[in-house]
């Protein structure tokens, strides 16, 4: 916490690999341009960073790679705004910047010996992928791992190769679903909205934590179903996606009630959310 440091100065990163995930959705694998930065950098599942094409501004995403996989970080984004449009114009070998990690973490230590239920919708799988891989890499510490992932259409599903990998693994149960009308003739997964599919799946809440990530509408309808299934508010985790700029609880943008999402979040339990005003 030295006061002579410029906290807004990012790391320079080299785009090492670009993967096209879905229409307008890309994953970047980034390496530190300066090896010393790489050596001193570490993060934990759930944290986020400020990614930027220098000259176009900064944008906030979670770190999508697992902390157990060293020497690179990955981010996945959809092209929507100014910064993500600039990002999507980058090619392998280009320079961009990153600063972080910021925010709190998923308490995966506390989850040891429990069943994990991951529920993700659309472009919200990336923030969860970090913690999924993290727990999968430490597989022996956890009991059943179930992943429910839904997207609007089959084409919108991200990380298709990893979804395949998870399907093939006997120790992970993966359920994918697409919204009605989004299926293709050869679609083998479920058809229906995430909350509906979840209700049908009716996973046991016994010794289980649920981690929910998705667009506000999905979260809004998923949470009551989890509660109905008997999940305690303390066992439901989600991440808030408020707009952020600084990452230090100063710029005021992500202020929800007394918390700053960038400092006290982005990971919250439902119990914590219920304490907060509905401004997220």
């Amino acid at each position, binding site marked *: *916490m*030295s*006061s*002579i*440091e*410029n*906290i*807004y*100065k990012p790391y*320079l990163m080299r785009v090492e690999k670009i993967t096209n995930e879905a229409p307008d959705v890309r994953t970047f694998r980034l390496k530190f341009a300066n090896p010393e930065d790489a050596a001193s950098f570490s993060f934990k599942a759930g944290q986020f960073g400020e990614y*930027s094409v*220098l*000259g*176009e*501004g*900064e944008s906030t995403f979670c770190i999508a790679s697992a902390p157990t996989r060293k020497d690179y970080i990955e981010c996945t984004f959809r092209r*929507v*705004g100014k910064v*993500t449009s600039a990002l999507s114009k980058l090619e392998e*070998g*280009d*320079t961009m*910047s990153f600063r972080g990690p910021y925010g709190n973490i998923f308490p995966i230590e506390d989850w040891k010996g429990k069943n994990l239920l991951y529920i993700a919708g659309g472009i919200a799988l990336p923030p969860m992928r970090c913690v999924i891989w993290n727990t999968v890499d430490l597989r022996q510490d956890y009991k059943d791992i179930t992943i429910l992932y839904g997207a609007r259409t089959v084409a919108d599903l991200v990380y298709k190769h990893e979804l395949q990998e998870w399907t093939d693994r006997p120790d992970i149960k993966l359920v994918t679903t697409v919204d009605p009308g989004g299926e293709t003739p050869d679609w083998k997964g479920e058809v229906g909205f995430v909350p509906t599919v979840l209700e049908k799946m009716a996973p046991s809440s016994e010794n289980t934590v649920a981690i929910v990530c998705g*667009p*506000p509408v999905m979260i809004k309808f998923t949470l009551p179903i989890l509660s109905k299934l008997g999940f305690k508010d303390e066992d439901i985790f989600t991440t808030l*996606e*408020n*707009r952020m*700029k*600084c990452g*230090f*609880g*100063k*710029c*005021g*943008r992500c*202020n*929800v*009630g*007394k918390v700053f999402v960038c*400092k006290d979040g982005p990971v919250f339990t439902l119990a914590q959310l219920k304490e907060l*005003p509905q*401004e*997220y």
Partner: protein
Amino acid sequence: MSMEIKSIQKDSLDKLFNSLKSRGNLIYAPVKVKNEVQFDFVEKFEQITDDFIQTTQSVKNSVFPKIETLFKFVKTGKEVKMLDMDMSLIPEIVIWGIHPCDVWGFDSLRAIFTWDTHDMFFEKRMDKLTIIGMSCAKADDYCFCTSVNLGPGSTKGSDVLLTKTGNGDYIAELVSDKGKALATSMPDVFVQAVQSKKEDFLVVVEKRFDSESLIPKMQKKETFDSPFWVTNSLRCLGCGACAYVCPTCACFDIQDEGYGARNIRFRCWDSCGLKQFTIHTSGHNPREVQSQRWRQRLMHKFAYMPERNKVTGCVGCGKCSRACPVDMNIAEQLQEIDQKM
């Protein structure tokens, strides 16, 4: 810190000014511009006025400028080179004739910029400040400093606080070590204290509410959910005037600007009153209507900041109410909350 009291004779105030100037300080003082009084860098003592209640804008831009370059970068092909700002270029500034409320604004800013991670730019600028405060002999209906535990003669935060006495001489309270050092270095300006009581020359500011009782009320959930916010903010236009003139509002935006290879990343003022402040790229807006944004402004100052930053984010200067185009009077609304909730 024990405080020393000296006095300055009315005709040696310019001597103080000139000595400060000759030591290479920039002097940021109130000057009359058209019908208003604004802080500006002054060259001559005669430019300064002390005939005002409040300036339109606060002096926060001396430590939290409208635009602060965070770093520069040069882009050549695929390469980017980052360049640090030369912090040694930050000038020594003397803020002259600033009222106690405005002075206390710096403390709120400090709470925001250093509550967790320290902000280098703010701290460096703060270090270079010398604050010569001036007690208030005048006030108007908008002033409510006494309601937030300050007062027209409050020494909090000043290095030296001057109070003009009946005969034009000044009582000089040396509040900080910086202030004492300043006085020691100018023995011909800071002379033996006269026998007059500062309180006799201060304006009386009526207490509208008590922040001690208001803060817990603001923190109650019922207050947050109260229909008060909608009814009282219907006329709010949703501009950023209140936040931009406020001595303690510190919300900012980070942006890039440049021409070709040469670029800068900077931060600039932003306001929670503006609709675009919290809007997501998807179009979802956590604070969708103006009443939520107005509530956020007051809550941030009177509920969240006291809890997290241990300060009230308001100094009772009333600048926001004066600047408001539609007469959103903050003191009036706070008073109402204090009485009703």
